[in-house]
C-alpha cells in the first residue's frame, strides 16, 4: 500500500534532523494557523497563490530563495563546525549524516537559492525594464514557480522522511546507482530536480519569449538595459542546458527504477558518460546564475555612478560571447580522467577564453565609475565588493583551467574556495545588490541603509575569513568532502574558516534585521516618487509598487537609458503629459493552475520516491487534468476600465512632479 514507506523511514535515532524538522513544521503550522485565524487566507489565495502577475511571482521566487538560503546556510554552518572539530575524531556528525548535509547544501544553494533568486529578480524587473505589462506566458510563469517550490519541498521532506542523497550535489554514478546507494536519498534528489527542472525550463522559455517578442515601442535590441541582455543570455542557456539535465537524470532514474544500464559498472554502462552529460549542463548552469548577476551590477554601477554604462555594445558582445563559449568548456571539470593532452589543453584554453569577455566586463564597470558621481548606497557597496572579490575568484578559476595546475587542485578545498568565491562573490552579492536595489520598486519603501551596510561588511569580511583559509587548506593537499581527518596542518585553517562562518552568519542576521527594521519603519522609508535612486531604466518610470498593469501607456523609447532620457527631456523642455487619453487595459486573470499542478506534482514526486504506484498514477492524472481544465477555460483576461487606469496614473504623476533629479543637471 505504501511502497517502501514505513516507520523506519523516520530517523528517530538522529536528534538533529528530527528537532530541526519539528521546529520547521511547528513554524509552518504556526504561520498557517495565524493566516487562517486572522482571515488572511482569501487575500493570500487571490493576491499571491493564484496570482499570475510577474511582480508577485518574482517576489514569491525571492521569498522561496531566502527561506532556502537559511536552510542551506544552516547546512554550511554544520559542515564548517564538523570540519573544525573532526580532527583525529569523528566530530559530532556521523558520515551518513555529514554526507547528506554537503549533498543537500550544494543542491539547495544552486537549485533552490541561486536559481529562484535570479529568476525572481528577472521576473520582477525585466517586463518593467522592457516597458510591457506582463511576461509572455503569465500562467505558465506561475506554474514554473510552483514546480520549483515543489522541488524545494521534496528536498526538505527528506530531512524527516527517509534520507537525502549522500553522493554530493551532482550524484555521480556509480556511487548514485542502486547497488551503492540503495536508499531513497538519490531518488529524493533526482525527482526534486526533475520536477523543479521542468519549472526552470518553463521560466526560461517564458523569459526568452518575453525579451524577444514583448518590447515596448522603440525598445530595439541595442536600447535594452543590460539586465535584459543578460536575462536573454541566461535564459537561452536555460532553454539549451536544462533539457540535458532532465535527460541525464532520467537515465539515472531508469537505471535505478527499471534496471537499465546507462551509468552502471556492469553491462556496458559508462560512468564517464554521466560526467560529460551532467557537466554539459553544469557548466552553462554557472553562467545561467552569474550572467543575471552581471546584469544587476551593470544597472547598479551605472545608476549610482550617474552615468550611462561604459562600452554598452562591448558589454552586449561580451555577454553573448560568454553565452556561447560556456557550452564548450565542460570537460575542464574532469581533466583528471586521463584524457590525452590535446583534449585537456583545448578545453583548458577554451575555459580561459571565457575570462576575456568577463575581464572586459570588469573593465567596463571600472570605466563606468570613472568620471562618475558615485553614491555609496548599499547596492553599490555590494557591487564594488563583487568586483574586487570576483577578480580573485576569476584568477583562481583560470588557474584551475590550466590542466597541470588542475592535476594538483582538482576536487581539493582550493576548488571549493574557488567556486564559493565566484558564486558568493558573484551570484550572491549580485542577488543581494538586486534585492536592495529593486526592493523599493516592489514594495514602495526603501530598506534601512544602516543595517544594509552592516550586512554588507559582515558578509564581505566573513566571506574572506571563511574561504581564504580553504584556499590554503587546498594548497596543503586537503580534498573536499572530508567528514574527518588526521592531518594536523589542516586544522588551524578549518578553525579559522569556522570563525569566518560565524561572521557570515552575523551578516545574514543583519540582513534579516534590515528587513524587520525596514518593515517597521516603512512609513518613514516610503518612496512616493517611484524613483528612489534617480534611476535610468523604465522600471523607475512607474510608481512603486507598480500598478498591476505596470504602465498606463506603453512608454516610447528613443535611446539607451530610456527613463533617464525622458527625465532630461522633461527638465529641458519643462514638459508634462498633456491630458492623455486613457484606454481600457486587458490583463490576464488569476489562475490556480500553477498551485494545483504543483500540489499534484508533489504527490507524484513523493509517491515515485517511495514506490507508491497508485499514488503516482493519482498525482500524474491530477497534474494532467489541471492542464486540461486550464486549456479549456473561456475567459482568460479581464478589463481594467480607463477611468480606473486614469485615477491610478494621475496619483503617480502628481507624486513625481516634485522629483529632483540629477538628470536635469546635465
Amino acid at each position, binding site marked *: 500500500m505504501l511502497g*517502501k514507506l514505513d516507520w523506519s523511514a523516520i530517523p528517530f535515532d538522529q536528534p538533529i534532523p528530527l528537532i530541526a524538522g519539528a521546529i520547521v513544521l511547528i513554524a509552518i503550522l504556526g504561520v498557517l494557523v495565524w493566516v487562517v485565524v486572522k482571515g488572511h487566507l482569501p487575500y493570500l489565495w487571490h493576491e499571491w497563490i493564484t496570482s499570475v502577475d510577474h511582480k508577485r511571482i518574482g517576489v514569491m521566487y525571492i521569498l522561496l530563495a531566502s527561506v532556502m538560503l537559511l536552510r542551506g546556510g544552516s547546512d554550511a554552518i554544520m559542515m564548517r563546525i564538523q570540519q573544525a572539530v573532526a580532527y583525529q575524531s569523528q566530530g559530532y556528525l556521523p558520515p551518513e549524516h555529514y554526507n547528506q548535509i554537503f549533498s543537500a547544501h550544494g543542491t539547495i544553494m544552486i537549485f533552490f537559492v541561486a536559481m529562484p533568486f535570479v529568476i525572481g529578480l528577472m521576473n520582477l524587473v525585466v517586463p518593467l525594464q522592457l516597458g510591457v505589462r506582463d511576461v509572455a506566458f503569465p500562467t505558465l510563469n506561475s506554474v514554473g514557480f510552483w514546480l520549483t517550490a515543489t522541488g524545494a519541498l521534496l528536498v526538505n521532506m527528506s530531512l524527516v522522511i527517509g534520507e537525502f542523497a549522500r553522493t554530493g550535489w551532482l550524484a555521480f554514478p556509480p556511487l548514485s546507482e542502486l547497488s551503492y546507494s540503495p536508499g531513497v536519498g538519490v531518488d529524493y534528489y533526482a525527482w526534486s530536480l526533475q520536477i523543479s527542472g521542468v519549472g526552470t525550463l518553463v521560466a526560461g522559455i517564458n523569459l526568452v519569449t518575453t525579451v524577444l517578442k514583448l518590447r515596448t515601442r522603440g525598445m530595439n535590441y541595442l536600447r535594452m538595459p543590460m539586465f535584459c541582455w543578460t536575462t536573454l543570455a541566461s535564459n537561452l542557456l536555460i532553454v539549451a542546458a536544462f533539457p540535458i539535465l532532465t535527460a541525464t537524470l532520467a537515465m539515472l532514474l531508469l537505471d535505478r527504477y527499471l534496471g537499465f544500464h546507462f551509468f552502471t559498472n556492469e553491462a556496458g554502462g559508462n560512468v564517464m558518460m554521466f560526467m560529460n552529460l551532467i557537466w554539459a549542463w553544469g557548466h552553462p548552469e554557472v553562467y545561467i546564475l552569474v550572467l543575471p548577476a552581471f546584469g544587476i551590477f551593470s544597472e547598479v554601477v551605472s545608476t549610482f555612478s550617474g552615468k550611462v554604462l561604459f562600452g554598452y555594445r562591448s558589454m552586449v558582445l561580451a555577454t553573448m560571447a560568454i553565452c556561447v563559449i560556456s557550452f564548450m568548456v565542460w570537460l575542464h571539470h574532469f581533466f583528471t580522467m586521463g584524457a590525452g593532452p590535446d583534449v585537456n589543453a583545448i578545453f583548458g584554453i577554451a575555459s580561459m577564453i571565457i575570462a576575456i569577455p568577463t575581464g572586459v566586463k570588469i573593465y567596463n564597470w571600472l570605466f563606468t565609475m570613472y568620471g*562618475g558621481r558615485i553614491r555609496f548606497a548599499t547596492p553599490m557597496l555590494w557591487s564594488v565588493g563583487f568586483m574586487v572579490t570576483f577578480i580573485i575568484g576569476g584568477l583562481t578559476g583560470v588557474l584551475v583551467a590550466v590542466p597541470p*595546475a588542475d592535476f*594538483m587542485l582538482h576536487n581539493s578545498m582550493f576548488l571549493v574556495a574557488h567556486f564559493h568565491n565566484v558564486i558568493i562573490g558573484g551570484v550572491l552579492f549580485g542577488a543581494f545588490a538586486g534585492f536592495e536595489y529593486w526592493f523599493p520598486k516592489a514594495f514602495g519603501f526603501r530598506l534601512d541603509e544602516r543595517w544594509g551596510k552592516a550586512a554588507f561588511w559582515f558578509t564581505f569580511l566573513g566571506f574572506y575569513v571563511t574561504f581564504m583559509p580553504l584556499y590554503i587548506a587546498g594548497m*596543503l593537499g586537503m580534498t573536499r568532502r572530508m*567528514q574527518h581527518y588526521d592531518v594536523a596542518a589542516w586544522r588551524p585553517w578549518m578553525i579559522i574558516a569556522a570563525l569566518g562562518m560565524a561572521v557570515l552568519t552575523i551578516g545574514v542576521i543583519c540582513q534579516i534585521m534590515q528587513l524587520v527594521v525596514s518593515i517597521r519603519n516603512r512609513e518613514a522609508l516610503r518612496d512616493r516618487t517611484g524613483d528612489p535612486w534617480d534611476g535610468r531604466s523604465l522600471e523607475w518610470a512607474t510608481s512603486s509598487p507598480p500598478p498591476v498593469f505596470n504602465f498606463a501607456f506603453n512608454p516610447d523609447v528613443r535611446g539607451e537609458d530610456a527613463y533617464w532620457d525622458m527625465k532630461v527631456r522633461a527638465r529641458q523642455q519643462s514638459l508634462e503629459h498633456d491630458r492623455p487619453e486613457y484606454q481600457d487595459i486587458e490583463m490576464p486573470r488569476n489562475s490556480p493552475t500553477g498551485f494545483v499542478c504543483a500540489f499534484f506534482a508533489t504527490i507524484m514526486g513523493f509517491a515515485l520516491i517511495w514506490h507508491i504506484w497508485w499514488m503516482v498514477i493519482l498525482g500524474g492524472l491530477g497534474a494532467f487534468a489541471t492542464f486540461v481544465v486550464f486549456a479549456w477555460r473561456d475567459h482568460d483576461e479581464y478589463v481594467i476600465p480607463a477611468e480606473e487606469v486614469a485615477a491610478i496614473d494621475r496619483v503617480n504623476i502628481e507624486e513625481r512632479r516634485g522629483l529632483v533629479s540629477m538628470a536635469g543637471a546635465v
Partner: protein
Amino acid sequence: MNLLDPQGPVAAANSTILVDSVFIMLAIVVPTIIAILAFAFWFRASNTRARYQPDFVYSGRVEMVVWSIPALTVILLGGVAWIGSHQLDPAAPVPGTGSPVRIQVVSLDWKWLFIYPDQRIATVNTLTVPAGAELNLQLTSSSVMNTFFIPQLGSMIYTMNGMVTKLNLRADNEGKLQGLSGHFSGDGFPDMMFDVNVISPLAFPDWVAATAKTDAVLNEASYKKLMQQGIEKGRPTYRLDDPRLFDLIATQHIPPGPGPELVSEAGRPHSGGHDAR
C-alpha cells in the same frame, strides 16, 4: 602534504606551473583591484575635486585596451596550458634511475590496494617505492570512482571500474609522504588516506623480500573479501598469487564490488559507515 613542497619532478613541474600562472595573472589582477578601489574612492559623490564626466561612455582606445589586456594574458597562459598539458600528461614517461617499478593501484571501498606484479607482492594502504626510480602506475577501481592523489608527487588521476588509467611518477627523496582520494566515494571516504614510504633503491629489494615472506596470499578469493565495504586501519601485506589479478579486476572478470548490505527494505539502509565507528 604541501603542494609547494614537491618531492618529485611531476609535482615540481605542476607546482611551478601553478605558481607561474598565479604570478602572470597577479600582474594584471593587482593593478585592476587597485584601480577599482581608487576610482570608487576618487569619484565618490562627496569629492568636489573629481570631475563629473557623464558623457564618457565610449572610447575606442579604452575598448581596445580592455579587450587586449585579458586577451594577451590568456594567450600567454594558453601557451603555458598547451605546453604544460603535453609535458605533464599523466601518461608521459618520467625517466628515473634504475629499472622502472610497475605498480597496479585498485581503489576499494574504502581502502587502496597496491599490487606489485613483478615483485609478486601487494599491500593495502601503504605504497612503498624506491627513491629515484620511475613508477609506472596503472589504476582502476573495484567499485565506485576515486582519485588517486599523492599531493607531493603530483598529478591526481581518476580510478574507474572497468577502465584503466595510467600515471607515471617519481619520488626523489627518501621519507614518508601521504596520499588520499580526491573523489567522494561513500561513507568511508575520509579514511582512504594512505602512507607513501619512499625508501632507498638499495633497501627496496630487501623490503620486497621481507614482504614476500608473509603468509597472507592475495588471490581472487581473498580479493573478494577485501573489496567488501569497510575501513582498514591496519597495513596488511600480501604475497601475490596471480600476477594477472589486476587485469581480471580491470576487465571485470571479477565483478565490481558489492555495495552496502541491506538491513531493512526502508529508506535508510545501514551501510559500512556504521562498522567504521
